[in-house]
């Protein structure tokens, strides 16, 4: 059984990547909190994760000699507009406090993903050391 980094690191590498992309989107919302007509955007994390999961399932069920590269086809994160609870008069749909909370949550989830990934890397290192 060959060692495959994308199998060994699992979903966490992609999750971490997605978290950093999402932090960019949320930072953009916060920076444009006072821009007239700006529509708040966000990444649908659940949907992307489901797509990734499906592609991982596919990878498992196909022939073992297949070389599949799922990273490119499921790599783009689609942005969606948010529905504001209280849209403002100037057409801006950013709700700063909610965005702040989401940003904080995203940073914590980033830390969680990072910790998982770090443990995986540590595990591989321990295996390679063969002590």
């Amino acid at each position, binding site marked *: 059984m060959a060692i495959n980094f994308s199998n060994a690191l699992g979903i966490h590498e992609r999750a971490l990547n997605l978290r950093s992309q999402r932090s*960019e989107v949320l930072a953009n919302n916060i920076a444009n909190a006072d821009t*007239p007509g*700006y529509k708040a*955007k966000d990444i649908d994390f659940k949907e992307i994760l489901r797509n990734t999961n499906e592609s991982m399932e596919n990878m498992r069920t196909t022939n073992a000699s297949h070389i599949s590269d799922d990273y490119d086809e499921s790599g783009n994160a689609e942005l969606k507009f948010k529905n504001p609870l209280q849209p403002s008069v100037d057409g801006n749909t950013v709700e700063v406090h909610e965005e702040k909370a989401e940003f904080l949550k995203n940073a914590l989830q980033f830390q969680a993903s990072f910790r998982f990934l770090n443990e995986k890397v540590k595990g591989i290192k321990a295996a390679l050391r063969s002590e």
Partner: protein
Amino acid sequence: MSLFNVLNIAGSGMTAQTIRLNATASNVANADSVASSVDKTYRSRQPVFAVQAQGGADDISSTLDGYSDTNGSGVNVLGIVESNAPFQRRYQPDHPLADEEGYVTYPNVNIVEEMANMMSASRSFETNVEVANSAKQMVQRILTLGQ
């Protein structure tokens, strides 16, 4: 790396809010700068914010296509506009700048509005600082991967 872009975005937000605060300071400072004629009177100045993105702020299709050009890159100050609100004319015949009818023209600065603007700008600035700090922590954390 997108985390470094977060720092750029938060920086653009801070810059924009500083410009806004600057305009507010100018407006408040000149709230009582009287003049004898309408064209010489100070006009309230307001910055115009717009999204920094390819294809313009209102081009929704270009911002929804793929991820690479969707992330946006912060906020931009398009310029400063002068308000067209009517001036206040007060009857002060003993004022040295009074016109022949005895009126002086006060700027069209709404001091209450400016105070609200000032608070909003300073809060938005703080929020952007917090975002930049969080991004910094995230980058520092990622640098310790595998240690």
